[in-house]
């Protein structure tokens, strides 16, 4: 027997795909800035914020929206090996696979890029850049200096202070977009839109402002935490639906279940 709460909880599984993206006032604003910065002669664009503020989601959305109109490449996972990173850059630019037992010569790659000046403009989206080594970041800087390759990088806010402080980044990062946690209003829209989009309007309607306020209090409006919290809430709902349906109501969002989920995730201490 399938449960509707099982389906609802799966909406909140934390994944980065274009379907999971929810347009909110703040995310739409950041998206517009990002798109406009691509048309400017900028070498690098920095997207930074705390984990779970939607940086990866925004990059993903940008990639899927622009992949048909621009030469754009998205490295969703950080590539820690320099050799592998250069191979991926080479394959993305040339459209050819690197033969086995061969490696990319960085000077050769730079010369190749310089030859492409004025002919092509390639955008690379790099997620989780705080994990890249300093040497690799230096190579990224040199590649962006060719003005053929443009990098859009994401950094965790806690890390950016160190990275931005470095001279080579200071001069090259021209656009900085800061991502922050959602406010109560945005969080309410986020939850409702996500549920309505997946056809659970009646459940979305029983989640009132006070419930959202409580959720916001526990998660601070962090999207990743909110997804995790709502997943746990609907997981408990699913259990009651299957075993003790008299304990839940379709008309009122249960405060008890909200608190139980908060206890489960350690937001509250019993």
């Amino acid at each position, binding site marked *: 027997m399938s449960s509707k709460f099982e389906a609802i909880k799966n909406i909140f599984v934390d994944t980065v795909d274009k379907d999971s993206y929810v347009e909110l006032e703040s995310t739409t604003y950041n998206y517009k800035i990002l798109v406009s910065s691509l048309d400017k002669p900028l070498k690098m664009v920095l997207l930074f914020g705390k984990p779970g503020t939607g940086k990866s989601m925004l990059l993903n959305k940008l990639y899927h929206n622009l992949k048909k109109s621009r030469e754009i490449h998205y490295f969703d996972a950080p590539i820690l090996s320099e050799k592998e990173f250069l191979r991926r850059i080479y394959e993305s630019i040339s459209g050819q696979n690197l033969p086995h037992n061969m490696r990319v010569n960085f000077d050769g790659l730079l010369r190749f890029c310089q030859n492409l000046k004025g002919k092509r403009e390639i955008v690379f989206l790099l997620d989780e850049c705080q994990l890249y080594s300093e040497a690799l970041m230096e190579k990224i800087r040199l590649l962006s200096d060719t003005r053929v390759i443009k990098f859009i990088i994401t950094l965790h806010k806690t890390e950016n202070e160190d990275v931005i402080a470095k001279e080579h980044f200071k001069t090259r990062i021209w656009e900085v977009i800061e991502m922050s946690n959602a406010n109560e209003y945005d969080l309410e829209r986020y939850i409702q839109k996500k549920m309505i989009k997946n056809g659970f309007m009646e459940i979305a309607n029983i989640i009132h402002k006070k419930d959202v306020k409580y959720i916001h209090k526990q998660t601070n409006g962090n999207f990743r935490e909110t997804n995790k919290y709502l997943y*746990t809430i609907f997981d*408990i709902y*699913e259990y009651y639906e299957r075993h003790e349906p008299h304990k839940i109501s379709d008309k009122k969002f249960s405060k008890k279940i909200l*608190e*139980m989920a908060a206890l489960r995730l350690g937001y*509250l201490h019993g």
Partner: protein
Amino acid sequence: MVNTRQLEKKWYKYKIKKIFSVLALLLFLILLPLGAYYSYTQYVEKKNKSAFEEKEVLKNIKPINQVMKTENINKIEPIERVELPKKEGVSLEPVIPIIDMEKEERKKSNVISHKKHHVVSRKKTHPTSHKKSTSKHVKAKRSAYLTKNELVKNKNKLVKNNNVLDSRKLKKINMTTTSVNYIETIKKKFISTKKPREALLLAKAYYAKGAYSKAEEWALRANKLNSTSDDSWLLFAKSKAKLGKRDEALKILISYYRKSHSSKVKALIEKIKAGRL
């Protein structure tokens, strides 16, 4: 799927804790002003009580004549034993005076022998008589005896001393005349002011003079004007005791001591009991 049953139990515990903490907070918020109010009222009550008690003590001290009436002192037979309120470290038990009879006798004989010696030395400055008078009491060394010449010098000195003594006697007479003047002056002052201080001074003056009945009378007057003064009670009792009314004096002092707890009064009670007044 999380273990929901366990989670539910955890939630119930959490809820109970939360309710208790809210109740405790509420209780605290209710009790805090109540406690503050209670302690404040207690403090005010205590303060008022102590002030009231102080007033009551002063009120309860009646003048001597009233005490004498209420206690019916004149009818009471001589007291055998008076029970005083016990106080830590203070004993009002009667003290039996111990007199060393031998010492007393020795003193008396010394005084007599000195007198005799003086008389002899005035009439005769004979070394043998001097020797006789002192040999009974003092074992003096031979070398300490006076020579004839020295005795002549001593005789002259004694004459001079007698003259000095005479002049002192004259001075004494003058003093008595001044004390009479003093009493008269204070009496006049008392008539005009009617203050207890003057009455007390008169009582003291009469007591010093040995006029105990007058001293008693003036102490009583002073006490009527200010019944809380220790001195008027003490002087009245002392005068009574001197007049031979020892039991009356004790009875008055004890009744006053019960209210005042004065150390002076206690000391006088002991003194009268011991017969050392």
